[in-house]
């Protein structure tokens, strides 16, 4: 015999946790939820590649405040990950600068496009088509790019980014938290992390 009861705890239903999903509030909420425990937060990031790619997309469509916030968050995450890895912080730091200039150039172009309002849609399309394996077709769209009055440097910059992302896409395999952390101890991964941090630092410099 049971009296009627209607209230069901949220955790027993398909209800999403209530949290802002976009913009700076979303990032703050995530940080709040994980109480600054970035190592725990990073557990929920499936792939570093995903993180990089998404960070670029977020930056592309974010306003200045959000860009800064994203930058800080990602740098902190990377630092946290590095803190867990057993070796090589010094070596990692040494490699930071090696490829930084090239990326800063790319970011120049990106920021320029963002300012002229052309970046969002273009970059999204580019990413989409690259993912769908239509990169070659995309590159035929030089006419389009010129029609949009994007200069040659911009096209080169975008192609560099796409080529790197393409390689990553073809070569990558799914990796979980522990896999990711193990991977951090390899030279290539450290180089890649350096690359990322350099982008973000470069970006931060431009924003200040």
């Amino acid at each position, binding site marked *: *015999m*049971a*009296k*009627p*009861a*209607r*209230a*069901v*705890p949220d*955790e*027993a*239903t*398909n*209800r*999403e946790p209530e949290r802002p*999903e*976009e913009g700076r509030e*979303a*990032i703050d909420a*995530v940080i709040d*939820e*994980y109480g600054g425990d970035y190592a*725990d*937060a*990073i*557990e*929920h*990031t*499936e792939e570093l590649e*995903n*993180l990089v*790619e*998404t*960070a670029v*997309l*977020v930056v*592309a*469509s974010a306003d200045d405040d959000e860009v800064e916030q994203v930058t800080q*968050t990602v740098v902190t*995450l990377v630092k946290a990950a590095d803190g867990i890895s057993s070796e090589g912080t010094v070596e990692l730091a040494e490699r930071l600068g090696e490829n930084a200039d090239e990326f800063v150039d790319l970011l120049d172009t990106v920021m320029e496009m963002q300012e002229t309002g*052309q970046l*969002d*849609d*273009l*970059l*999204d*399309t580019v*990413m*989409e*088509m690259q*993912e*769908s394996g*239509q990169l070659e*077709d995309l590159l035929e*769209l030089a006419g*389009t790019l010129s*029609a*949009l009055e994007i200069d040659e440097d911009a096209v080169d910059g975008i192609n560099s980014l796409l080529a790197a992302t393409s390689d990553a896409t073809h070569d990558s395999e799914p990796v979980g938290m522990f896999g990711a952390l193990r991977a951090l101890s390899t030279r290539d991964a450290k180089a890649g992390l350096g690359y990322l941090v350099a982008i973000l630092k470069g970006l931060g410099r431009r924003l200040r």
Partner: protein
Amino acid sequence: MSGERKEGVAGFMQQAKAQAKRNVEHFAEGVAADSMPEGKLFDIATQVSNHRLGELTVDDTTCGYCAVGCRFDVYTDGDEVLATRATSPEQSPVNDMSTCVKGKFSYNFADHEDRLTSPLVRDENGEWREASWDEALTRTVEGFQSIIDEYGGEKMSVIASSKATNEENYLMGKFARQVLGTNTVDNCNRLCHSSTVAGLAKTYGFGAASISVHDFEEADCIFLTGSNTTEAHPVLGTRVKQHVKDGGDLVVFDPREIQIAEYADQYTQIKPGHDRAWVNGITRYLIENDLYDEEFVEERTTGFEDVKEAVADFTPERVEELTGASEEEIASAAEYIADADRCLFGWTLGITEHSRGTDNVTALANLAAITGNVGKPGTGVSPFRGQNNVQGGGGDMGPLPDNFPGYQSVADDENREKFEEAWDCDIAGERGYYTTEMFNAFSEGELKGMYCIGENPSLSEPGKKHADEVLEEMEFLVVQDLFLNETAKYADVVLPAVSFLEKEGTFTNTDRRVQKVNPVLEPKGDAKADWEILQSLANRMGREWEYENTNEIMEEMRALTPIYGGISHERVEEEGGVQWPCPDLDHPGTVRLYEDEFNTEDGKANLLPVEYKPPMSQPSDEFPLTLTTGRVLYQYHTGTMTHPEEGIMKYNDRDFVELNPETAASYGIEDGDPVRMESDKGEIVVTAQVTERIGADTVFAPIHFAETAVNTLTDSERLDPEAKTPEFKVTAVRISPVEGTDSTGGPSSVEPARGDD
């Protein structure tokens, strides 16, 4: 399948990516409209859409709404259904490329935030608390076992789910008999077509449609009664409309001038509750005027003289007085049937949900047989079943108090021995309680516990107040469902189940066609398929069920069920559906029943005289109007699947009452006014819909909303004596205007849906 929602930073990143992808879709309009060649724009659009489709899962399955048995491809991202599209014609024999508004769009329920993802148990304060499967199953087994130990297994009851697959329903019947030790297992068929099953079984042999859906195309005349076809079975409604467009005749008898009546050559408005009278009147006219099929009657039927004698009393005057159908209308309907070489008789719950439903069906079976309209192309009887799998799961699979799978009687010693041996248990020879009887038996202390799977008796049983009292008082109640429905709120344990979109198996549709159900979504959270839950419970209660998948269940079932003997998953997949009876793997299945003989001892149709008995509920001075209940196109039964659909709710978000303009005026009620409707069982307040489609002494209300549950007015004790179907279609009521309040469903800015949209 992909698309799992991630937590934390990754979740944010995922969201950002999704936003970026959405931007792509606006690319064409936003960036390139005036700067890019149109051809290139098209290329990009194609690439983007192909890419997006490439990320989706596509599989064909069988619809989980009504029992027409439409099949289509379902596109999902793993979490939710994004679209349905026509599948190959070989895989969709019933609907070709058609689907209705529910089958096409109404899938938000599957990913709805109220879907249960974990079992629920009561905490020390009686409130719900999330539980592990282990804890919930332990509590369930303890509850069941304590009733079995204290009172005996026969005090347990099971309500099986006609929404679930055949395989699962086979296990629900097996679980009741083998694990719990009770024959009290039944399902929603008791509330709808059990009188069809009873009436057709005793006249023709099988309690099912004799036709194939393609007989609609081959008929010269379709005779429809008690079926709001375009709303309750929209895709069949399309076939009927096509039949008319192709020049076929259509005759409709119904208390409401429903949309399909607009297509009819003859529409006759009748008073609800007296159908056997006008059917007998037509039969009388045909016999008296020698318009029946003497050869067919002679060779293929018995009992004609008894029927002839019984219908003689149904003179035109008497029929008109009882039903409102005039002498001319009866004669005209009879002539339409007689003129047609091939006539098909279709009906739905307007014939069956009566205290004399079995009589109504028997009268129709007599009519079809004396006119030779059975067993030939374009002829036959076609009850349109309601729940997606009520034919297969609700009947064929034998979760029934009196039958094992394949309508093998429990009372028959040989049948019982066969199942006792196969299931290693003792089975009583006396039938258990039917669903409608169960609720009365609980009141009398004859039943103590219930395992209710995928049903919502709090809303669907006649007499809501009584049903709720029984549910609250019962010693132990376990509910297995997608949601915490109105019934589950009384439960001791709630077990989260998955929908038809998340599992594999078969459904059997309204023309006996067994079709494949394929999973297109991942199960939500920790929810499990009914068969998995049943297996876990059975094994915790000392049995050794070892099914790896539903195919293994099907194999066991068909070995024990002659009409399904040759129906395997493999065949159903390869052949796009197989119609029973199909005794062995070499048998092609049966497109049309009774082509050579009826399924009776002598192979002939047993014509049975039907006397007139009045409905149990009758209008009086106190309750002068007759309420009849039913469905509307946009909603489905108690609404668990359709209420989560915002678009559908915009069309129809509440119940209403249809009133004839004359009736409304006499009570000072205008369209849109709140109306109090009372019976001897209770009252509700609903919005008036004033319409000519309904007769002056009749009112109609739909069944879809808990807030205004129309079964507050119906009666749990007015049942068909044979089938125990409730008298949903006839309740004496009175109405009165309500000043200054809205319906009991609360205020709403949305106009109530016209039933004929």
